[in-house]
């Protein structure tokens, strides 16, 4: 084998420009595969990471009324019924709405999330990237108090909002007791969090609930509990405009859409690699034509057809392997560049591309395979050359 490699090296360095151009075809294909797939994997990974923090032991229940569904939406009676279901440890109700606000004489509509004050910190801090920059989370007994998103503090109103300031919502003064750090998500940054019951009270929402987070006793029973929740909702309502999703389903919904992107990306990259493979085949056919006499000499000095086949297939395989290795390195570089750019322009943890060992291994194996397959036909042709004719050429 070492002899074949030595010979390959001599052959590849003999026509440097041609070798370079052939390599380029493979390099471009593999670079494209590695870079594009790493973006796809990165998207999936960041979503998975977000939901890992969220935890698999949760089921999300939301009314579809706001999204155009019919019926009355979630009510306290649903909360009470779901709380009593077997397998349910706790239910945290959430109200989200937009209300009029006034700060230092400036009036503006503001998105508000109402969440039970005593559970707010636990629910949100382990679920999402919330970190308190200044002050604290709303906690037990905090009725007229709010913790606000970074943008609300920074540039929502003409004047910056600081801890201790008061924002008026529907004529009620609410004291800011904490400010979150930038989460990188503008929806989270442009929002204030206040107590669930207090928010319903001042907004006259009665017993309306926007959505619920159901915590489970046992993750493995998620499917069964989900069915029970659906049944409970059906008993309480005539219509079934509710979305009941386990964490897993929620993740799957999003990652499925990423998979489509990944397949499209991979397809584009595969096409370019096939073009690279055709380039290798072309080069090897040229090499065989050019080396016809040499192949005749080798046959005259005792080479079997199998020697000739191995020689050419090893050479084309090595072209694939070298091209693949370079492609992986460049693809990795591009992937890193995208990471840096994403962090700069989209914020931290939004898109973190990843070149996994599997991806690198696959790319390498694929490029080697393309190289070998591209060499098979020229190698077979060469092995069948008539030595008398080949020597005369």
């Amino acid at each position, binding site marked *: 084998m070492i002899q074949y490699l030595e010979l390959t090296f001599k*052959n590849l360095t003999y026509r440097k420009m041609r070798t370079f151009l052939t390599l380029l075809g493979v390099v471009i294909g593999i670079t494209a595969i590695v870079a594009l797939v790493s973006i796809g994997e990165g998207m999936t990974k960041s979503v998975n990471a977000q939901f890992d923090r969220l935890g698999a032991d949760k089921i999300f229940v939301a009314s579809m009324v706001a999204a155009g569904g019919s019926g009355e939406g979630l009510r306290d009676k649903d909360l009470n019924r779901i709380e009593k279901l077997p397998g349910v440890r706790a239910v945290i109700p959430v109200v989200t709405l937009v209300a009029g606000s006034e700060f230092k004489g400036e009036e503006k509509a503001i998105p508000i999330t109402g969440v039970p004050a005593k559970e707010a910190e636990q629910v949100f801090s382990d679920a999402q990237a919330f970190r308190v920059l200044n002050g604290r989370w709303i906690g037990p007994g905090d009725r007229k108090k709010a913790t606000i998103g970074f943008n609300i503090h920074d540039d929502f109103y003409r004047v910056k909002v600081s801890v201790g300031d008061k924002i008026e919502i529907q004529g009620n003064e609410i004291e800011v007791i904490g400010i979150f750090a930038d989460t990188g998500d503008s929806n989270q940054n442009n929002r204030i969090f206040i107590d669930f019951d207090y928010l319903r009270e001042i907004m006259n929402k009665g017993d309306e609930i926007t959505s619920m987070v159901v915590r489970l006793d046992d993750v493995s029973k998620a499917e069964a509990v989900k069915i029970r929740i659906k049944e409970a909702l059906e008993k309480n309502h005539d219509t079934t405009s509710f979305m009941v999703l386990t964490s897993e389903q929620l993740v799957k919904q999003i990652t499925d859409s990423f998979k489509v992107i990944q397949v499209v990306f991979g397809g584009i990259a595969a096409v370019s690699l096939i073009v690279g493979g055709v380039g290798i085949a072309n080069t090897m056919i040229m090499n065989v034509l050019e080396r016809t006499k040499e192949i005749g000499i080798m046959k005259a000095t005792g080479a079997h057809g199998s020697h000739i086949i191995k020689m050419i297939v090893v050479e084309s395989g090595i072209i694939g392997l070298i091209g693949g290795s370079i492609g992986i390195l460049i693809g990795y570089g591009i992937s890193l560049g995208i990471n840096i750019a994403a962090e700069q322009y989209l914020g931290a943890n939004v898109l973190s591309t990843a070149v996994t060992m599997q991806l690198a291994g696959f790319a390498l194996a694929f490029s080697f395979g393309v190289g070998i397959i591209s060499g098979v036909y020229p190698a077979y042709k060469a092995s069948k050359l008539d030595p008398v004719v080949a020597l005369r050429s």
Partner: protein
Amino acid sequence: MSLLKIEGVGKTYHMGKVSVPVLKDINLEIKKGEFVSIMGPSGSGKSTMMNLVGALDRPSAGRILLNDVDISKLSDDSLATIRQKMVGFVFQQFNLIPRLTTIENVELPMWFAGIPKKVRMRRARDLLVQVGLGDRLTHKSTELSGGQMQRVAIARALANKPEIILADEPTGNLDSKSGSEIAKILTGLNEEGKTIIIITHDASLAKMAKRIITLKDGEIVDDTVS
């Protein structure tokens, strides 16, 4: 015992519907250790004869026995093995592989025969010393003179210790000084016991051999032992 026995061998090339007989009913026996020249004008069938004897091609009729083995109907792979073990070629055009060094060119037949690298290198070096190129081991063939290239080719032909050295116009591309050096090397090999067959139309080279066979129009017209 005869090393090479040619029995009623004919070779006909087909060009479309036209059949061109190149060799007709050749009968010949060459013993181990002989030094034979095959002479004849162009088109007399010399090269075809060399291709058949060298197991590069198969006859259309008759049998060729090499060490009592009929090689006229062997498969491509078996013919390759015969070429590898039994025959060493020396060509008019030298036919070295330009990318390889002198020693690598000599190693090549041994590589095909599966001989380990160390053994191969030692033998290749010895052979090159034997033909007077001990100081040119790592030169590329493009850096050698014609005479030197032909000496490399002879070393390569000897690599797998073949029964027969087949030389096709070995001095045809050389000046007279290099030519006589090559002739001397071949004579020396014969004296050491190698069977040598030279194909040539150069009468002075042919005379170095102890037996001269003359071909004309695909038939043996003369077979003289001096």
